[in-house]
């Protein structure tokens, strides 16, 4: 399916895929898809940065190629690697004469022995792929510099084979949790969007689209309680993912109302830090009541 031309259409398509995007995010995505520019999404933990790429791929029938970044990731894990074990076997199998032969050596570094890694896969798939480069801030800055090259030209040079370039670049979504400041050069290559916490109405909408069987009155109370939690001085405020988890947990336990007792039993779904737990437990009454 083609990508849509207007913000409204894109928002609607994403909604059908179960993702509620606000106007800003939809605009960023639309511009990114039309201008073939990567988009960098930053935001609090659990606000749906990764999810949007999945839904985008799903809705428009693209292949999602995910590159999860971590410290020490290098080109072998991101780009391509030769299948060394098979190469070794092949070399052993070659006769003396064949080794001297140009052609058999060329074969040794042919497509048969090339292992595709996410970036190469995305460039080969071109327009048919959505490339998700997840948690780019976890990779070290050498990797970031390397990524710059790939993202600006969408081509990769493999010395033994030559240059592989994408006919039409894939849609690229980068996410970052801001554990480290990204380089300006990378930011300049990308469009940027900050995803904040949604408003209560929007969050309720998100919960209901994700958990269609949830009781709406209960979901509303949970959303209100989570919003109150975010106002507290917590070390790790709950994200939207936590709200959904909480509704799901309560639903699973068959609770129909958010009583202090029920909240106390299930608070582990939203609060995941001991100090925060102590703080919240004292105020559970207030948090659940006013909703």
């Amino acid at each position, binding site marked *: 399916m083609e990508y849509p*031309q207007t*913000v409204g259409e894109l928002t609607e398509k994403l909604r059908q895929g179960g993702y509620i995007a606000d*106007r*800003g995010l939809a*605009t*960023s995505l*639309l*511009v*990114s898809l*039309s*201008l073939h*520019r990567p*988009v*960098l999404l*930053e935001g609090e933990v659990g606000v749906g940065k990764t999810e949007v790429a999945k839904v985008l791929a799903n809705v428009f029938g693209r292949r999602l190629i995910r590159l999860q970044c*971590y*410290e*020490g990731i*290098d080109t*072998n894990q991101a780009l391509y*690697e*030769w299948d*060394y*074990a098979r*190469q*070794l076997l092949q*070399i*052993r199998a*070659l006769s*003396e004469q064949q*080794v*001297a032969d140009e052609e058999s*050596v060329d074969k040794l570094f042919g497509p048969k022995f090339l292992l595709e890694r996410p970036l190469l896969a995305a460039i080969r798939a071109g327009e048919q792929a959505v490339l998700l480069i997840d948690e780019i*801030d976890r990779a*070290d800055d*050498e990797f970031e510099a390397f990524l710059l090259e790939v993202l600006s030209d969408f081509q990769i040079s493999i010395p033994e084979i030559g240059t592989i370039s994408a006919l039409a670049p894939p849609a690229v979504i980068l996410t970052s*949790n*801001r*554990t*480290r400041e990204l380089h*300006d050069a990378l*930011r*300049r290559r*990308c*469009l*940027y*969007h*900050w995803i904040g916490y949604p408003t209560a109405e929007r969050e309720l909408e998100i919960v209901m689209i994700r958990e269609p069987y949830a009781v709406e009155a209960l979901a509303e109370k949970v959303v209100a309680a989570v919003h109150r939690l975010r106002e507290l001085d917590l*070390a*790790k405020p709950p994200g939207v993912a936590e709200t959904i988890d909480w509704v799901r947990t309560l639903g699973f336990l068959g609770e129909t109302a958010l009583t202090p007792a029920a909240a106390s039993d299930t608070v582990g779904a939203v609060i995941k830090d001991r*100090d925060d737990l102590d703080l919240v437990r004292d105020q559970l009454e207030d948090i659940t009541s006013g909703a």
Partner: protein
Amino acid sequence: MPDQPAFAGVLTGFGRALRSAGVSVGTGDVMSYCSAAGLLDPADLVDLYWAGRTTLVSRKDDIPGYDATFRQYFLDEAAPAPELLKLRATAAAQVQAEMVMPSTEPGTGAEEEQAMLGLMASDVDALKHRSFAACTASELAALRRIMARIRLTPPQRRTRRTKSGTDGRAPDLRRTIRESMRMHGDPAQMFWRQRRVRLRPLILILDISGSMADYSRHLLQFAYTARHAAARVEVFCFGTRLTRITKALEHRQPDSAIEQAARTVVDWDGGTRIGASLDTFVRKWGRGGLCRGGVVVICSDGLDRGDPELLEAAMERLSRLCHRVVWLNPHKGTNPNFRPSAVGMMIAAPHIDLLLSGHDLASLEELAALLPVLN
């Protein structure tokens, strides 16, 4: 797009307005903005807003500036809150006035100083053990020059990243194969992947409150040197609240860098709230991963006017987040049997890995020497 050149003129004008508001906007960004606006409905202000926000803004901190400029430029709104600007201007002026280095401290050590002054100018060694609080202006200038030569090297750690080498744990098949091709297919020599090593991040947190007034400016100088000596250094200041001055210290000229840093900080020579400041640090930066695996150096006398429980919790969290905590307390001096008397210091003590004085040049050199082996 209707009336293209005129419209593009409006958009580039907006880019210029953003630039003068301090948001860094390149020509390429403005071009993306124009093409993005071309895709959308240019008569719709909301589209214009979001198109600009995604193309012209590249970091969260720039969003408020962008919003204000957008309102001014497209909606003709007057510049907001003049009193706030005024406040900033006076604060900056005050700081500048205070940045003048204090001359000799009158009182206790006056005669001693008089006697030693002749030696000072030439004798670097004697100068080294002179407390910053008791120095004259010219001595301080000399100290600054020496300080600029201290190299801070944080300890190293092994990373997950590997490089090729002659020994190691995992085989480097890529290189082994490449080499064996040259040997007609016989894997003659084995190559291995070695883990690389890398400097740990260094985080300086400086107390610039009233009780530390005699030391804080030198610590700032020290921070500048450190910032330029090691790769990953973050610098923070606190009195009553925490300010990040890493960006300000990036300036290449030491004087303007320090001046800029001083301007960023608004609570010079005020009270101290160590607990609250460290708590902010842990919440806002520490948990984000800024100090994970790093060495945190706190320079403070530990005279805290805030809640001791807050300090305890913050120190505990900090010590769990980072690799090592070093505390420089100028009041420790050269006394090896120093026992902290300030409450803040006593609370923080169990979480400190290394306590140094940092009151004179020699102790800063001691820190520089101990830092690389802090494992």
